[in-house]
């Protein structure tokens, strides 16, 4: 019984983790290239969720079609915020960029609240379920998981095989060096910010495929905190490290519950959250470049 | 007894050996030039001497004390001053405050309070000739002014040994002469040993230093009085064996 439950939890955790990983890649990409922590990360996820919701409920379009739409909207938002705000803050102290991204997050939340209201919404994309014996997996979750993996793979290919991707990698390594070698650093910054935001908005689509309820202007806060932990797991500056960080995080989150439940007199669910932050601190101390890095 | 003594010091980064088995001695009041092309390990050597990095092997003895494992902030008060290749002023503070920081923390005497160090700063600023900039924020100075300010800051520490990292790079030749004279004068008065790191401005090397240590790929290849060293075939090989662009590149 115990074994069955824990296997079920781990499978669920793996599926969840892939979406979490996807939802952190944008954060890592932006940090890697611009050295800016996007504290408003969750708000962009929320935008993606509302795009899905609107397309599904109003136009009746499948969430899969929301992915390209979300990416386009994300790129536009990214370029908009880059050229109006972030561009001037790249060389500023952390304080400024942290506060700026946070304020951008609030702005998005309030605008969405003005348009859609503060109600918690959801949609119902009925595509069946997959019974695995130890647990039941709705197909929509599976699609979200597969979608995340594909996007992570595409990003990997793009990063390693294209010219723009290589430029981006060189800026991650050493922005001054890249500048000397003739990389258009400003352009790369803009591009990375836009793609980072694009990925984040897309992850909002995948997250609502995974959990299609609780869509609200303020839903992003929890995801921001999770994304921080995951990003650190994967080595803050590495987008596909973040993807694997997400997998690890999903497993920890769902796997540790059963173990904490064995301790009497505690609330195991809250302790799984506690554990994830303990892991965050340990990793920051012993291996700030992330669990998976070779350095 | 030598003021500074390095015994077989080795510093590696990953697999890369940046400083390889270097031993050297610098006497009190001596003017030494450390010469070597870009990437020869000069900056690492400096960082090992003032404690930014700890060496993997070897010992560093300063003024009779083994400082191999001492953190930088404990070495500075013993009398090791430092300037940087690209100046690193405390930008938001004024020139006066910058120099005062050196006086405040860079000496062993605990009695140097804020007021005293500001006075010391004023004196040194006068001597260096930065008087008109004293109230200016250090971040707003020109690069040359910043370099002067760094030297003033280091001198305020009352160092016995002053490590100057490419102090004259990027300066007009006239300014270099002036500055060399100034530093020499102060150093003689205060009995400061100066270790100046240079990459390619041989003129300044000749004008200032008594002894030259040449580094090549992390190892010391020559350690001799200036004139002798410049005629050494190994030095000629190191310098002429490389295409000129490389030796002129700023590391």
């Amino acid at each position: 019984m115990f074994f069955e439950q824990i296997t079920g939890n781990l499978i669920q955790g793996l599926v969840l983790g892939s979406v979490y990983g996807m939802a952190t890649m944008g954060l890592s990409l932006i940090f890697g290239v611009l050295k800016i922590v996007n504290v408003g990360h969750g708000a962009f996820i929320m935008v993606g969720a509302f795009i899905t919701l609107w397309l599904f409920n109003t136009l009746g379009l499948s969430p899969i079609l929301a992915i390209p739409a979300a990416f386009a909207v994300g790129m536009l938002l990214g370029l908009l915020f880059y050229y109006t705000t972030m561009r001037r803050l790249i060389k500023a102290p952390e304080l400024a960029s942290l506060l700026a991204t946070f304020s951008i997050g609030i702005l998005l939340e309030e605008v969405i609240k003005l348009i859609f209201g503060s109600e918690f919404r959801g949609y119902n994309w009925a595509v069946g379920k997959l019974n695995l014996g130890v647990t039941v997996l709705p197909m929509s979750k599976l699609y979200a998981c597969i979608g995340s993996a594909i996007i992570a793979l595409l990003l990997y290919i793009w990063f390693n095989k294209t010219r723009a991707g290589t430029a981006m990698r060189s800026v991650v390594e050493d922005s001054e060096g890249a500048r000397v070698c003739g990389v258009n650093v400003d352009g790369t910054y803009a591009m990375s910010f836009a793609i980072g935001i694009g990925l984040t908005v897309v992850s909002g689509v995948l997250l609502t495929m995974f959990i299609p309820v609780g869509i609200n202007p303020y839903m992003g806060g929890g995801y921001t905190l999770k994304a921080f932990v995951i990003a650190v797991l994967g080595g803050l500056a590495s987008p596909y490290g973040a993807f694997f960080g997400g997998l690890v995080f999903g497993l920890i989150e769902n796997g540790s519950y059963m173990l904490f439940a064995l301790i009497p007199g505690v609330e195991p669910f809250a302790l799984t959250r506690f554990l994830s932050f303990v892991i965050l601190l340990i990793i920051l101390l012993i291996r700030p470049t992330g669990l998976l890095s070779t350095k | 007894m030598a003021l500074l003594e390095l015994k077989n010091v080795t510093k590696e980064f990953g697999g890369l050996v940046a400083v390889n088995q270097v031993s050297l001695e610098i006497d009190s009041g001596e003017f030494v030039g450390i010469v070597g092309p870009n990437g020869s390990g000069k900056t690492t050597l400096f960082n090992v001497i003032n404690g930014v990095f700890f060496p993997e092997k070897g010992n560093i003895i300063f003024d009779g004390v083994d400082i191999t494992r001492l953190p930088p902030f404990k070495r500075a008060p013993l009398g090791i001053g430092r300037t940087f290749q690209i100046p690193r002023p405390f930008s938001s503070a004024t020139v006066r405050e910058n120099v005062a920081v050196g006086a405040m923390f860079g000496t062993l005497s605990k009695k140097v309070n804020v007021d005293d160090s500001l006075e010391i700063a004023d004196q040194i600023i006068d001597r260096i000739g930065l008087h008109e900039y004293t109230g200016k924020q250090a971040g707003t100075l020109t690069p040359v002014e910043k370099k002067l300010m760094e030297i003033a800051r280091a001198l305020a520490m009352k160092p016995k040994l002053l490590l100057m990292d490419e102090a004259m790079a990027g300066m007009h030749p006239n300014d270099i002469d002036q500055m060399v004279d100034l530093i020499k004068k102060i150093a003689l008065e205060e009995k400061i040993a100066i270790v100046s790191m240079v990459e390619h401005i041989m003129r300044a090397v000749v004008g200032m230093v008594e002894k030259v240590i040449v580094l090549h790929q992390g190892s010391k290849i020559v350690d001799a009085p200036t004139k002798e060293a410049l005629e050494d075939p190994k030095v000629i090989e190191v310098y002429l064996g490389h295409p000129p662009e490389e030796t002129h590149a700023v590391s």
Partner: protein
Amino acid sequence: MKTISKYYPLLPVLAVYFIMFLVGKNVSGMWQLVAMLLFYCALGQAFNIFLGMTGYVDFGYVAFMGVGTYGMAVTITQLAHVEGLGFLVITIGFLMALLFSTLLSLAVGAVALRLKGAYFAIATIGVNEGLRFFIEGARIWNGSEGLIFMAELNQILGRKTASALATFWADIMVLFIAMSAAYVTLLFMRSKIGYALTALREDEEAAKVMGINVTKYKIIAFITSACFAGLLGAASWALKTPYVFPPEVFEIHYTIEAIIIVLLGGAGTLLGPVIGGLIYGLSKYYLSIYMPGFQLLIFAPIIIVIIVIFPEGIIGMLKNRFKDTSLARFII
């Protein structure tokens, strides 16, 4: 004469607090507003000692207020049944708040202060959230049910005094905390600590080479700042607010508010957090009265504009403008 002139920059700070006190005391209906403004000023001043002077962004700063609140709350609930203690309980409460925030700052400082920049910010968020979930998960101090202790306060002090404490004296304590934080800030600025902090804020490696024990000075600023936060939590979130619920005292928004206040006024300046706190509190207050529901929508773009256009904050800007005038010695 010279020693007195050292304290000139405190004059505008004290003047602002004095005016606030007078307005609150004499204009009817203003005391609670003044109390809120004092809270924001005190929050800004306390945070400024670390954030402004070292440049390290502690995103989990609110955790120190949280443990301070718990220090007071736990003392009150535990000692309520002991008779005849009276105000001694409050004193013990403040001491416990100090103890808790010092212990936490030592623990966090030892761990997180080795990290820099974004890594430090994320680590401190982790401490704050982790602590909250630990209190809830391990059911410490009643877990998520929290502590509600107005009855205990009534029992200890008597109804009348307890009520006066919650509505007036707690705010006076906040005022004292704010003023002490200002005094300590100036003391730091005028001493070696201030020079060391400026140096390490601008260039940590160069500071080390200058002979500055950067870890020591970072920890000094960190603990001082944390202690003020603990006291502020004890006064404003325990005595003025007779309950503690974990999600409310570890709410990350308060850190953000503190950052906004410090940045608005000018990070690392003495007068900045006071002015920042005033402007922030007043604009919030009047926006919520005249445009209820739209504060944040108006506020967010303003903050972005301020960051981009006046990164030095209001006092930072004024400081530069009045640099060579007689006003200069008052504005730092």
